[in-house]
């Protein structure tokens, strides 16, 4: 089963989506609308977003050819709900920068409170998986708490969704094809099997430091294959069996409107 949050017919709804793409609301109402309908506005899929953990440098797909030594422990940074937006929504490119790129990532959504969770039991704490696009602006990188908040905490630069797939429906989260297209052209073509620290490892690691809570999210990093994105570009991040997340880039002025 898949779970999402949408606005439909003026109502904000929590929905379930079955294997036949049939949409049922939390009240049991069946919606007569197709998943790709423009009548649906997709919200970020986690209803009460908690702490968002994101991983940097977590793919080793070029480790062999580059003789690159993988990190010995996860590089984790934190984001908050101001960065979230939904499927088919917009993200902005700040004025006056040279290089902003997408990062297509598998996201594990925490469903149960836990501390000191063992790897073997970690998936019991995962409600499901979704996809995010953890945009980065390389111009703003500085070597202080890198990747710093100016790079990674901006409004709208973490599109997520459209839905969460139950953990039980993804038997192996480390065997999924991961692709990104920009304006229909394939620019990133990887697989989650190249992840260095997998979801159970990261849950064990983080929960040794702190308590994880329902609504927390773990964004697991992106493989090789990133390109600069400009206003007007449409970016689609896809992870096999999970979902495809579409984002349109706009300028800073278009995004902020009156507040620009």
């Amino acid at each position, binding site marked *: 089963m898949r779970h999402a949050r949408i606005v439909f017919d003026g109502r904000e709804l929590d929905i379930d989506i079955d294997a036949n793409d049939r949409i049922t609301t939390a009240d049991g109402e069946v919606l007569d609308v197709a998943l790709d309908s423009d009548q649906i506005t997709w919200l970020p899929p986690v209803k009460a977003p908690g*702490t968002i953990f994101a991983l940097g440098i977590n793919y080793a797909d070029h480790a062999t050819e580059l003789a690159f030594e993988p990190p010995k422990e996860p*590089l984790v940074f934190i984001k*908050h709900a101001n960065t979230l937006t939904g499927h088919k929504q917009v993200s902005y490119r700040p004025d006056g920068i040279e290089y902003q790129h997408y990062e297509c990532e598998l996201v594990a959504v925490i469903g149960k409170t836990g501390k*000191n969770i063992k790897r073997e039991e970690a998936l019991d704490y995962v409600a499901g998986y979704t996809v995010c696009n953890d945009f980065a602006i390389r111009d703003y990188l500085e070597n*202080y*708490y890198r990747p*710093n908040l100016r790079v990674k905490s*901006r409004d709208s630069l973490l599109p997520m969704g459209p839905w969460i797939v139950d953990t039980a429906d993804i038997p192996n989260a480390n065997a999924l094809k991961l692709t990104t297209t920009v304006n229909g052209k394939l620019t990133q073509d990887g697989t989650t099997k190249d992840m260095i620290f997998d979801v159970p490892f990261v849950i064990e690691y983080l929960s040794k430091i702190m*308590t994880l*809570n329902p609504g927390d999210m773990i964004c697991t990093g992106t493989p090789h294959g990133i390109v600069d994105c400009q206003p007007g570009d449409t970016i689609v991040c896809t992870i096999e069996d999970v979902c495809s997340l579409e984002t349109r880039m706009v300028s800073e002025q278009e995004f902020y409107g009156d507040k620009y």
Partner: protein
Amino acid sequence: MTANTLVNSKLVCVALNDKAQLAALDATFNDAPYKKPPTQPVLYYKPRNTWSVDGAEVEWAKDFGSNDVAAMAVGASLGVVIGKETCRVSAEDALNYVNGYTIVSDFSLPEESYYRPDIKGKCLDTSAPVGPEIVAADKIANPDALTVSISVNGEQKSVFELANMERSVAELISIISRIMTLQPGEIIAVGFAGDRVAVAKGDKVVASIEGVGTLNNTLGGA
């Protein structure tokens, strides 16, 4: 996550905002891994599992072998409580978006490096008491003129005059509001004395700001 925390949704902290600390570290900023001095405020989050209250016990942290860590430290800051949606505001206008002021204590492992986000050091459960209350903004004529002090077991250990901050409260609100839209109840801890105070198990820690209040916490593990 304490139910009656004063924090709503976000606690942003500003590191390296003590002019004396910046001066002391200046020589290292041109070396690896930093290579250049910071050009922007150095920011970090205390996430929701850290939020706590006046009077609460702060857990003594464990290492990855489940043993008690050897050392912890505390810093204290003025906490600026946002009163309304704050998006891309100017420094001149920034204080109009403040609802009030409080105190944030940041318990952590000792600060050793500012290179990577300090998740292991800063994200410890119950390590960010905030309180004792929110004092209305109109009771504080000039937030940059306040002094933050820390005492441990009755002995004064740190005094930090906010006049010695690299960036003022208004400047920080303005800069942060151009990164992220701030919401009512979100709190910015605007600056800590560069020298964090070492603490031991069972210590009674008091952070105070005249006119804002006194925040009392005790280290666990004793």
